[in-house]
Every structure is written in structure tokens, then in C-alpha cells.
């Protein structure tokens, strides 16, 4: 993990002091709300439906046990004892007092954390694969490059007032677990024909009201040129991106308007001016940062799958959990464990302070004191011994966090929706609960198998409904919460935007509509191993639409 040095600590501490002064000036009236709002947003502080909300950056989703305990402490001391993990690997606190925010930022600074650039028209928290540095299928650990991007983009003077917000994701696994195709810039570590590792650069992806899958800007970018190339992209966007219409201000609109080839030409022209200049990261600084992500020294550990197999045969819950929530590690004898924040009665992605502390303790006891927040709003504890799996499962079960839900219909991504958000049209969270209840039997969920169901409370699409096998979008229909269903969205190499199935439903009818879709899938799949996405691709959406809208 990256460790703050004195420069980093001085920076976040001074930033906190600066915000304390700004808050005092706002409370005294020296700053108007119009003057203060961009300042608080640049520190992650929104005014939401019920109160102020603070979004704290978790860079590329990586946390230590102490940091997660610190976040639990903030939830307990300054909020109502819980936090909400987001698709961009951040955490949000919903009941923050403006007067206490400087104290929270001080607390964050003491944890080597901050809330800078979690809002505003700037480069946001860079996101990555939650298994980065621990996956079995990884070309190279991408976290060092994420950290380099974080440091480059933090308070970058040229990119503090972009036309709109800007999101970058980096992934290095054989499977893209960071949704790089739905980011303003997606970086995929790849290998050239000569064996050199570099970046495949995607640009212009995003969701919202104009969902677009990112297009390839560069097939192979040598790693040493990362910062100059990013700088060139951002410069083109900063100069040519639209500022006259908020709905057309994202880079995806610019790329589409110019065409990818013309956009590439513009980037290359800009890049020629700065390539190999001082903008490139010096080798010694690159080495210093990457060295902080050296693999942990893991002692040899026995591979005990036969013992685990015997336990799985005895314990259905353990069997489900191992199947869904345990994933391969690069070192034999080790695994990565996903802690599901999805269960009946729990808003997706929410965790209480005591749960955060207990999960931190597991990482400290059984892992390498390291945790990851995931795109799908769960928590990963990497580097766990296989021999400890049943003990870890037992500990999680005591916390009621041992659901084997990863990748199942219950593993819904959901935005806070109208229960918290000032922008939402409809509530996501009660609907997530209703759908979970509809498929309340664990055996049924396992039988359905891998599927992604995401819910957004408005067209801003924070719940990533566009990128789900089954997407649900909350709309306001004559003052009543209604929900559209989309089918066929995907992340990964073949990222795609889901298509609207038909007219919207009132909330009460949505779970049955989803059940009808699932019934068609189960009836028509070629075998139990054909996943929902494959059946949908094979059959097309019409048969699902007919089932959903048939009148009985």
C-alpha cells in the first residue's frame, strides 16, 4: 500500500485547515452560499435531501484496517453509525453537520485520507480492480499506476475546472473488473507483441442520460508516457469540451462529435508537444511509487482444497460462500475473500460502524491488513490463507456477513436514490429489498447463477443500470415513482448499454416483472451453465419482453 510521506501529510492537513477557514467564513456570512458551494463540493460535501453528505475518497478502493476503523469512527462520532460504499470505491456519510466537517477532515488527515476531488468538475478518485495486486489472472499490479495518476491529478492546476467531472479507471486482469469501458478514460494494462507491458487506452465511456461505451484511443501506450498522454487527452477535452450545455459537457459527447479518429489526431498533435517533456514522470519517482506496491511476503501455505471440499459437503452455506465469494490468488495456498454487503434488510453497499470494525479485524487477523472496496459495493479482503477459510466464514457468519451472494441476482448495485439523494426521481433501496425478497431463497439465487441487476434512482445512473444484464431506472411519472427495465448491459471487454424493454412499471409490479424475465431464462437456457447474459444474447430481448408485458 502507498504510505503517505511528510509532503502528503502536510498537504492534507493544510487542506483541512483551509476548509476550516472557509466554513467559518461561510457561517459568519463572509462567503455567500454561491461562493461557498464550489469550495465545499471540492471537498466532497454535498447538501442532500435530508442533510449534508460527505463523500470520502478511497483511492482505487484500497484501505488498511486502521483506515477502515477510522471510517467507522467517523460514522459513529459524526454520523448515524453507518456508511455507504459506492461504485467508485468511495464511502459516503449521510448525516454530516457543516460545523463538524473540518473536524472530520482533520480526522481523515490523521488516517492519511481526504475527501478532495470527490465532487466537482475535476479528475475524480481513480478506480481499479478490487483484486489488484492479488488476482491470479493479472498481468501486473495496476495500483502503482493508479497512485501515479492520483498524485498527478490531485490539485492539477490546469484541470481544476474542466467542462464536467472526469473519471479514470485502471484494470490489469484478464477480466475487466473495473468497468473501464464506462469511464471517461479506461486504462487496460496489456502486452505488446514484443512482450512489453503498457496501456490500452479507452476514451469517451460513461453513463448518465447519454450512455456510451468507451472507444479505443491507443492500442498500446508505453508506460513511461502515461502522464504526457493523459495530459494531452485532458488538454484537448479542456479546450474543446462544451461548457454551454451541462448535458453535453462530458468527454463522451466531444469524442462522438469529433469522431474517434479526429479526436485521436487532436490528442496526438497535443501529445507531440509534450511527449518526453518534464510532464513525464521521472524514473526515480516512478520507481519510488511502484516500489510501495511490492507484493506482500506471504509464507508458503498448504493447499487444502480436499479439506475444504469435505466441509462444503457438510455445510450448504459454506459451500455457497466458497463458490461465490472466494476467488483465486496468484500464490498457491492463498485466496481473496469477498465480504458481501448484500443481504435482506440491508441497503446495498451499507455497513455499520461495528461491521466495518469487525471486517477490519478480519483483515488484520487473517489477511495482510489490507481491504478493498469494490465496484459492486462490497468489500474484498485479499491475501487470505485457504487453511483459514472456514474460520473466516464462521466469523463472518456471526456478523451476518457470510452471504454467498457475489455475482448473483442479490448482488445488486443500487444508488442511494430518493431516500437520500436530491437528484433522484425514485427510491432504489426499497426496490432492491423487494427484489431480494422475491428471490429470498438462497437455493433459487444459486440456481439462477451469475447475473447483474443494477438500480438507479434517476437518469444520472449512479446505480449503473445501463451496464447491467437487467437494469432498473427510476422515473417520475406524473408524480409517482415508476421504473423502466433495460436488458443487455455489460461491463468488461464486450461492454454494452442495455436497451429499454418497454413501458415503465409502478414499484409494486417490478419484482414480478423481474421474476418473469428470470422464468423465461430458466425455461430457455440450454443448460444450467448457460448464464443469463448468454441466453439473452442467443434469444434476443423479444421473448423476455413478451413475458414481461403479457396480460394474464
Amino acid at each position: 500500500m502507498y504510505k503517505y510521506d511528510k509532503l502528503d501529510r502536510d498537504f492534507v492537513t493544510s487542506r483541512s485547515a483551509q476548509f476550516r477557514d472557509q466554513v467559518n467564513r461561510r457561517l459568519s456570512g463572509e462567503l455567500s452560499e454561491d461562493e461557498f458551494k464550489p469550495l465545499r463540493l471540492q471537498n466532497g460535501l454535498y447538501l442532500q435531501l435530508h442533510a449534508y453528505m460527505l463523500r470520502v475518497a478511497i483511492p482505487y478502493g484500497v484501505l488498511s484496517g486502521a483506515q477502515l476503523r477510522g471510517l467507522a469512527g467517523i460514522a459513529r462520532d459524526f454520523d448515524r453509525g453507518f456508511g455507504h460504499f459506492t461504485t467508485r470505491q468511495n464511502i459516503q456519510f449521510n448525516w454530516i453537520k457543516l460545523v463538524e466537517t473540518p473536524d472530520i477532515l482533520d480526522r481523515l488527515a490523521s488516517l492519511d485520507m481526504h475527501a478532495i476531488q470527490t465532487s466537482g468538475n475535476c479528475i475524480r478518485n481513480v478506480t481499479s480492480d478490487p483484486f489488484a495486486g492479488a488476482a491470479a489472472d493479472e498481468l501486473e499490479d495496476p495500483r502503482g499506476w493508479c497512485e501515479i495518476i492520483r498524485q498527478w491529478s490531485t490539485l492539477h492546476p490546469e484541470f481544476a475546472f474542466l467542462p464536467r467531472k472526469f473519471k479514470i479507471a485502471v484494470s490489469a486482469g484478464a477480466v475487466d473488473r473495473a468497468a473501464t469501458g464506462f469511464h471517461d478514460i479506461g486504462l487496460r494494462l496489456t502486452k505488446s507483441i514484443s512482450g512489453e507491458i503498457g496501456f490500452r487506452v479507452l476514451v469517451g465511456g460513461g453513463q448518465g442520460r447519454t450512455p456510451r461505451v468507451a472507444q479505443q484511443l491507443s492500442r498500446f501506450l508505453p508506460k513511461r508516457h502515461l502522464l504526457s498522454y493523459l495530459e494531452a487527452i485532458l488538454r484537448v477535452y479542456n479546450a474543446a469540451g462544451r461548457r454551454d450545455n451541462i448535458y453535453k459537457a462530458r468527454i463522451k459527447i466531444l469524442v462522438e462529435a469529433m469522431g474517434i479518429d479526429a479526436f485521436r489526431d487532436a490528442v496526438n498533435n497535443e501529445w507531440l508537444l509534450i511527449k518526453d517533456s518534464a510532464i513525464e514522470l521521472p524514473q526515480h519517482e516512478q520507481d519510488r511509487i511502484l516500489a510501495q506496491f511490492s507484493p506482500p511476503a506471504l509464507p508458503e501455505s498448504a493447499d487444502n482444497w480436499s479439506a475444504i471440499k469435505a466441509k462444503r459437503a457438510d455445510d450448504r452455506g459454506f459451500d455457497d460462500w466458497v463458490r461465490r465469494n472466494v476467488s483465486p490468488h496468484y500464490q498457491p495456498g492463498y485466496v481473496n475473500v469477498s465480504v458481501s454487503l448484500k443481504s435482506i434488510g440491508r441497503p446495498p453497499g451499507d455497513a455499520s460502524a461495528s461491521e466495518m470494525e469487525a471486517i477490519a479485524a478480519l483483515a488484520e487477523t487473517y489477511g495482510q491488513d489490507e481491504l478493498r472496496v469494490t465496484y459492486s459495493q462490497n468489500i474484498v479482503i485479499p491475501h487470505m490463507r485457504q487453511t483459514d477459510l472456514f474460520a473466516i466464514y464462521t466469523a463472518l457468519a456471526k456478523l451476518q456477513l457470510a452471504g454467498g451472494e457475489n455475482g448473483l441476482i442479490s448482488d445488486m448495485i443500487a444508488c442511494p436514490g430518493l431516500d437520500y439523494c436530491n437528484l433522484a426521481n425514485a427510491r432504489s433501496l426499497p426496490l432492491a429489498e423487494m427484489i431480494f425478497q422475491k428471490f429470498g431463497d438462497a437455493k433459487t439465487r444459486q440456481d439462477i447463477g451469475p447475473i447483474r441487476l443494477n438500480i438507479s434512482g434517476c437518469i444520472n445512473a449512479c446505480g449503473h443500470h445501463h451496464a447491467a444484464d437487467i437494469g432498473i431506472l427510476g422515473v417520475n411519472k406524473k408524480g409517482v415513482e415508476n421504473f423502466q427495465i433495460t436488458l443487455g448491459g455489460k461491463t468488461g471487454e464486450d461492454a454494452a448499454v442495455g436497451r429499454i424493454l418497454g413501458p415503465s412499471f409502478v414499484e409494486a409490479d417490478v419484482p414480478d416483472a423481474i421474476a418473469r424475465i428470470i422464468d423465461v431464462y430458466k425455461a430457455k437456457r440450454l443448460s444450467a451453465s448457460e448464464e443469463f447474459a448468454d441466453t439473452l444474447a442467443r434469444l434476443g430481448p423479444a421473448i423476455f419482453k413478451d413475458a414481461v408485458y403479457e396480460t394474464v
Partner: protein
Amino acid sequence: MTNILDRSKSQPESKSQPQSQSQSQAQSESQSADILITANRLDDGSVVWLADDLQWRQERHHAGHFDKVARRRALAKASHSEAANEVTAIYEIPIDGKADVSARERIRALGGPSIVPPKDLNPT
């Protein structure tokens, strides 16, 4: 001083969002219907409503209903409170059986979400 009918200032934060139907109705119909006036307290963000006695209250059932005659004084009070840095994000809600009972305003009036968040087992 903020125009309290200008919801673009008092509502969305950062992201793009057209006014919802109920919000549009709030603007177009607020000239004729009685209104509620609501805001957030500046220092802690709490939702408050202006009561008949022109004091800010945290419970929706204390919200005053301001008719054409009363609204001028009420709006003046709201503007004064904003200028005095007591409240922010002021807006009015027409009592028209639509905007005032919209899902948004019902949830806001609850003072919290309609679901139950996870409970901290070790509160201080």
C-alpha cells in the same frame, strides 16, 4: 439574496437534473396555491419548515400554510433568515395535492430514509 423560487440554486448539487414534474408544478402553481416554505439549516443541514409563527421548525407538521396574504411576510422572513446565515436552500412547496405529497416531499418530511439503515452495535 437568493430568489427562493429559483430551484436551480436550491436543489441539484453538481449533477444534471431537469426539474421534476412536481417541481415544475411547484413553480407554475405556487402563485395561486397556499404554500409551505422549507430550507436546510446552514450549520448542520437539518431540514426545517417555516411555522405559522415564522419560526423554523424541524417537524413537517409544524409547517405553516401561507396564503396569498401571509406569504409575503413569510417569504420576507425566509429571505431574512438566509441573509442572516441561519438557513440555506430555501424553497416553497405549493399545497396542491401534488407537489406537497410527492414521494420526494414525503420522504423529506420523514426526516430520514424509508428503509432501515444498518445499526451500529457499539454506539458511543
